[in-house]
């Protein structure tokens, strides 16, 4: 019975709410176009911009009309793809693979250059007028230790010469023994010296080493693949991945249901020097509190004073993979100033259905404050009603970008790789 009630609560919490700002999320009664593979609120239209382009992660649209995508695994030996829709029908008819021998997640444009993040470096090419960049890329930042877990170097720019790089912690909760039941958390966590934060670099200076020229801008971040600079509010925002396996390691404190729902995925505004609390604490959006991580003596109830509270908490394990603040005013009012967050979807909710697999939208004002509850902007990516095992999901939203005309793009690295173009067509 309790389980039924809990499931009902879960369902309610994931139902899109009508925000006071007047925007409405997807209509959960509306059908999902299986061929298109996503569902949007009324008035929005999507096309499959590109298909079968490989394991595409973050994407960026250039003013030259081309869209560039970083590939997590090389396609035809190349680590990036350039795409263009010259005739404007919403489908790219040109694709060029480039970045030989590379693979990565981060991609972005600043000051006439195309930047690219491998797991161990940030590179850049001069942005071409047309097509793919030429020549050998310049090395901007390096010296990131080569790790397997949480190695993706996503990044963003502040528009004033600063480059902000996510350096994920190669760890779940800084346990002495990696992901081993009963192993305590290390305090202080030595991982935080080199990982688990955002490092700032000069966007235009070559050969900066993380440990020398790199500045630790913020800490206590397990892995923020999703980060963006909000130009309106002139501030960094991140949505880190919360830790896994609470119930598996601490069944005395967390039921399987709680372990599926906890910890929250946290949406933070990040000032210089901020601490998001990992690994010492986590956020519980149901209680509105930061709690002590069980590896550090927590019991699922004890409040922690380590780490700042997030602006908002989402259900656990949804896996935020990109964050985007729009720059244009092409989208209807209410959608212009807030945060689009792509959740690629969970794996750590079994035996309950996996969740996430959507783009959420958080209404905000020009000063960067959250003004209302989040809504679901796009879903249906998984292609199945219930994802019992992550491999059953057909697509998972991975990267977000906006083009010069204000159209929104979403990437997925599943099923051969796909990018959608989303525009507002009005009612």
């Amino acid at each position, binding site marked *: 019975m309790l389980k039924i009630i809990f499931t009902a609560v879960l369902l309610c919490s994931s139902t899109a709410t009508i925000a006071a700002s007047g925007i409405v999320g997807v209509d959960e009664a509306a059908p999902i176009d299986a061929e298109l593979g996503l569902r949007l609120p009324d008035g929005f239209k999507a096309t499959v911009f590109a298909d079968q382009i490989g394991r595409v992660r973050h994407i960026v649209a250039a003013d030259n009309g081309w869209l560039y995508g970083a590939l997590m*695994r090389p396609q035809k030996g190349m680590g990036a793809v350039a795409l263009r829709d010259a005739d404007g029908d919403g489908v790219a008819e040109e694709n060029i693979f480039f970045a030989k021998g590379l693979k990565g997640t981060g991609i972005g444009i600043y000051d006439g250059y195309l930047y690219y993040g491998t797991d161990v470096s940030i590179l850049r090419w001069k942005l071409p007028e047309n097509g793919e960049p030429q020549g050998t890329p310049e090395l901007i930042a390096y010296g990131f230790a080569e790790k*397997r877990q949480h190695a993706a170097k996503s990044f963003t720019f502040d528009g004033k010469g600063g480059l902000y790089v996510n350096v994920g912690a190669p760890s779940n909760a800084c346990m002495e*023994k990696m992901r081993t*039941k009963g192993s305590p958390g290390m305090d202080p966590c030595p991982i935080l010296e080199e990982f688990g934060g955002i490092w700032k670099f000069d966007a235009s200076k070559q050969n900066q080493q993380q440990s020398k020229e790199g500045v630790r801008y913020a800490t206590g971040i397990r892995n923020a693949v999703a980060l963006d600079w909000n130009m309106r509010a002139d501030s960094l925002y991140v949505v880190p991945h919360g830790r*896994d396996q609470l119930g598996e390691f601490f069944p005395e404190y967390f039921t399987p249901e709680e372990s599926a729902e906890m910890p929250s995925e946290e949406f933070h505004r990040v000032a210089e020097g901020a601490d998001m609390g990992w690994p010492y604490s986590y956020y519980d959006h149901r209680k509105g509190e930061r709690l002590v991580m069980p590896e550090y003596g927590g019991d699922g109830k004890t409040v922690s004073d380590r780490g700042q509270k997030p602006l908002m908490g989402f259900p656990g394990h949804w896996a935020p993979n990109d964050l985007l603040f729009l720059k244009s005013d092409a989208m209807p009012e209410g959608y212009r100033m807030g945060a689009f967050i792509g959740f690629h979807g969970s*794996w750590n909710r*079994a*035996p309950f259905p996996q969740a996430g697999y959507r783009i959420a939208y958080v209404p905000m004002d020009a000063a960067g404050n959250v003004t209302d509850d989040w809504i679901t902007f796009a879903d249906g990516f998984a292609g199945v009603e219930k994802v019992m095992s992550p*491999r059953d999901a057909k697509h998972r939203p991975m990267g977000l970008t906006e083009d010069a005309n204000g159209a929104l793009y979403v990437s997925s*690295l599943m099923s051969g790789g796909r990018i959608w173009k989303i525009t507002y067509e009005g009612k």
Partner: protein
Amino acid sequence: MKASKIVFAALALWGTGAVAQETDAKGEGLYKEHCASCHQYDGGGVPMLQPELIGKPRANGKPGGVIDMILFGSDAMRENEGDYGNEMPAFSHLTDLEIAQIATYVRTHFENRGGPVTSDDVKPRRAR
């Protein structure tokens, strides 16, 4: 005499079946406790993050293949064996019997036909 032999044989068979069932139930329980959160209840894994266990060469070959993965985690992986973002911890703190039961479960489920293993298969591999 003949009849009692048949009865004995039947009892022996029944006994074997019961032991197999018990091993299977224990293996399943241990799999759910220690393995399923990453490799999933259906053995399907997580694309690019944690390997699926369905129809895997390691679970259809020599007894050591799965045992070594449990004992040593990702350190037991051969170079280029897999392309996964996560690391697997060692589960060497489990007993030989528990490891044998998990390995047996994996080798006899998820479309694997590797067959059961025993504690005696586990013990000598700890020192490797």
